């Protein structure tokens, strides 16, 4: 699992690779987040992010020997997702007026956890003789699906919707 150098992925490619059944499920899910995020199909696709636990599931499989995966690749992918979360919360906490003051302790705690996870995964990779991949450049507008999202004051609901997408351990099959 690597980043290829400087080749921006097109949104159409992302959409083409999505399972239609997943898109449908996300469309239902999207209703749940309508309070915070503008409604576009690209957004529903972007919010399919199942997050770190899914990648880590492959580690468990490797331990059981059912289908040996390249552990280093899986760790690199988990690291990538932790980078994403760590940067998201770091920027959110640093942005004046974005996060409701009463909620700030929640997000500083989460930010600290994500940074600790990054360090732990780096340590595992180093321990296996691998070089941890560097942090890539992120686009928290999801390549235009969230136009204008800049962690600015007044964008808290969008921030929360993104946080939920990053943290969910899978896309939930909301029963419409």
């Amino acid at each position, binding site marked *: 699992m690597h980043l290829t150098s400087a080749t921006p992925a097109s949104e159409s490619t992302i959409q083409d690779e999505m399972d239609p059944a997943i898109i449908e499920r996300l469309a239902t899910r999207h209703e749940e987040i309508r309070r915070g995020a503008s409604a576009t199909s690209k957004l529903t696709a972007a919010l399919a992010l199942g997050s770190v636990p899914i990648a880590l599931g492959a580690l468990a499989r490797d331990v059981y020997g059912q289908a040996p995966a390249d552990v280093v690749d899986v760790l690199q992918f988990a690291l990538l*997702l932790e980078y994403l979360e760590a940067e998201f919360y770091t920027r959110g906490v640093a942005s004046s007026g974005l996060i409701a003051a009463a909620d700030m302790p*929640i997000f500083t705690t989460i930010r600290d956890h994500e940074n600790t996870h990054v360090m732990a995964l780096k340590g595992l990779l180093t321990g296996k003789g691998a070089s941890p991949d560097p942090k890539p450049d992120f686009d928290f507008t999801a390549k235009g699906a969230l136009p204008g999202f800049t962690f600015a004051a007044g964008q808290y609901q969008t921030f929360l919707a993104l946080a939920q997408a990053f943290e969910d351990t899978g896309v939930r099959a909301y029963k419409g």
Partner: protein
Amino acid sequence: MNNLLVAGKIVSVEARHASVIADLLTPKTSAFAPQAFENAFSVGKVATAAQGFIVDKLAFSNAPTTFIQGPNNNG
């Protein structure tokens, strides 16, 4: 620590994060844990979704292609 132990220790904390954020969005409802078994996606599907937030293109040549079957497996 072995890989599985690390995974479990991270996953459980991520689930706490998911829970508190869900409760911020929809306070004091079942949103914090809407079902008894979490959904599971393949690495490939997660990677496809993650690509939306990453400027450079991911290459998935070595990603696992199959996944453990179980409750709520959507991978």
